[in-house]
């Protein structure tokens, strides 16, 4: 013990320059050791598969069959295949309808939970977060039950307030999108949590200064809270859009459990069918890259315009 504590000091006083360099080199070596799991994981599970799927998209790859290159056939098929364009339309329509709710609802919830005057915050916080912990599959079954045309509580409530003929949510193609939006409101727990966490990080001096100037609660929320949490709003906006492009579980379970509704043909479900039911891995890879490029363009557009509305207090 004594030798190890004295050794660096005595050595550094004797020959400081070369020894310090080896410590820095050692530190760097340790750094590479610690970071290596991610480097390996990134190469094996992200970069390599991405390149592979790009290559697959130019082949007729089917599991078990020999692969041959077929040029841009898969990519041309994307634009002629009616199922793909229908899936893209359904996915975008749903994204446009549910994006405001997927961001607005957690913002309202986080603002309520962040309110200074609210009582019983710990229990309310858990209650707001419970739906997010419900296993997705259970959540879908719970909503199927809740949205049941005859016995579901939602339609009972509608009949109670005098709407005699409420829609049969999950079976009627016209109301399905709204039903899916309703199911989606249970998935906002994480967005709420990150927004709440960043609201709690807003310096209280800002609010105190605003109070001195006579600002009311709404003005403080609009002028201080929103700008201060705008980086987290940007983060959630991007993640929500990516999530909507990947929307899968709900339409998959619905298409299995209710009678087939063409309105559940979301892009990712269509991709799953192409790959795992029809085994056309090559065409499915082209579909995957297509939706990836769309998501990438959307993300870049958002980032490019974000400096107009996102405020970084640190200045970066």
């Amino acid at each position, binding site marked *: 013990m004594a030798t190890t504590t004295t050794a660096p000091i005595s050595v550094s006083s004797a020959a400081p320059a070369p020894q310090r360099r080896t410590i820095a080199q050692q530190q760097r070596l340790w750094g590479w050791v610690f970071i290596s799991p991610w480097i390996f994981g990134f190469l094996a599970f992200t970069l390599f598969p991405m390149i592979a*799927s790009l290559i697959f998209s130019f082949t007729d790859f089917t599991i078990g069959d020999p692969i041959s290159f077929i040029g841009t056939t898969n990519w041309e098929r994307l634009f002629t295949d009616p199922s793909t364009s229908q899936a893209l339309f359904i996915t975008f329509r749903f994204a446009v309808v549910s994006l405001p709710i997927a961001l607005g609802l957690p913002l309202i919830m986080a603002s309520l939970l962040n309110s200074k005057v609210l009582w019983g915050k710990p229990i309310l916080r858990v209650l707001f977060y419970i739906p997010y912990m419900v296993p997705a599959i259970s959540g879908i079954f719970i909503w199927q039950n809740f949205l049941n045309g005859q016995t579901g509580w939602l339609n009972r409530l509608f009949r109670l307030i005098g709407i005699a003929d409420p829609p049969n949510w999950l079976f009627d193609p016209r109301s399905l999108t709204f039903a899916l939006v309703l199911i989606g409101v249970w998935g906002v727990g994480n967005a709420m949590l990150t927004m709440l966490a960043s609201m709690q990080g807003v310096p209280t001096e800002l609010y105190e200064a605003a109070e001195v100037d006579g600002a009311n609660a709404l003005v403080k929320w609009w002028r201080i809270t929103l700008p201060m949490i705008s980086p987290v709003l940007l983060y959630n906006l991007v993640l929500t859009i990516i999530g909507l492009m990947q929307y899968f579980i709900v339409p998959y379970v619905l298409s299995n459990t209710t009678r087939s509704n063409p309105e559940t043909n979301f892009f990712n479900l269509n991709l799953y069918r192409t790959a795992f039911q029809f085994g056309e891995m090559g065409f499915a890879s082209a579909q995957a890259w297509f939706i990836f490029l769309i998501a990438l363009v959307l993300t870049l557009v958002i980032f490019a315009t974000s400096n107009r509305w996102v405020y970084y207090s640190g200045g970066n």
Partner: protein
Amino acid sequence: MATARQTLPQTPAYNTSPYYAVQLRRFAVGSMVTLFTCLFVFVYLLPLGNMVMVALSSQEQLSQTADQSIIPNTAITFTYEGAEYDVYKMPTENGIEEWALINATRRSSEFINTANPEAGLIEWEGSWRTLEPVTKVEFAWDNFGTAWDAINFPRLFGNTLAIAIIGMVGTLLSSICVAYAFARFPLPGKNILFVILIGTIILPTQVTLIPTYAFFAAIGWTGTWLPLVVPHFFANAYNVFLLRQYFLTLPRDLDEAAMIDGAGPLKILLRVIIPQSLPAIIAVSVFHFVFAWNDYFGPLIYLLGKPELQPISVGVQIFNFQYGPRPELVQATSMMALILPVIIFFLAQRFFMRGVVVTGVEK
């Protein structure tokens, strides 16, 4: 402040505080906000109430007409001369009595007064269909047992737990190391690597799905848990980000003190960094646990046709395919499946919120 306290006991019924109006206003605003939030939560959690009520209903109760009460109830029957008869609410001069319907015809029917069966059959003029049946609340608790046995819940539960815990260990081991590297070590190009790391958060999984699946199929891992747990041993961007942000808030003085005492990087990680970062580590553990508990797509494609290895999320579907529509069993299983994650969140939430709050500040 001291004088105000002294004067208070003398005039207990009168609030002398100069801020009385402010206090009153704050109380009013507080109760309004709380009331609104409670209403909001009530509506938000309404489907859960629906789930509980269906999970506690028997098959017969569910097949009754739609305009039944939302609480599961069963018609009461009355045994008369060895046979069972339905009981109805009958308005009489003694108030409402419970009469059992013995012989039903359209215009008039014969009843027995359940309170006084010795009086024999009573002829009643009128349509018995206009009468309201007497019901009692009856919960079908045995749905849970039926569902438990039918899907072999202990096996599904054990599978889910094993997949979640192995993956959790993997992601903790690897993410802590990687976050430590990003937070403390001078690496060339570290900033670029960090941007790439964050970039993988917004990468849609489809684009890597097919080669990854083909790769796992080629090395014979499909039909095992390996594709579901092994990738977690190679760190995950979200967890690394969360932990790195937390590690950056820890003062470097302690690291340096330990280094002067001769501790190597591994020892500093184990003795200095990890003990100080428990909130963030618990947050990452809970996030992974909830993720694994809910993960559906992975088990669906990798454990296809292997029911003995499937977790709850995939196994639960059997009710919709094999047993025909049995909503009460589906809802009972849903209830059983969400109990453990909710308990874990309750237990962990104190640490967990601290971990998320601190990491949230940094971004």
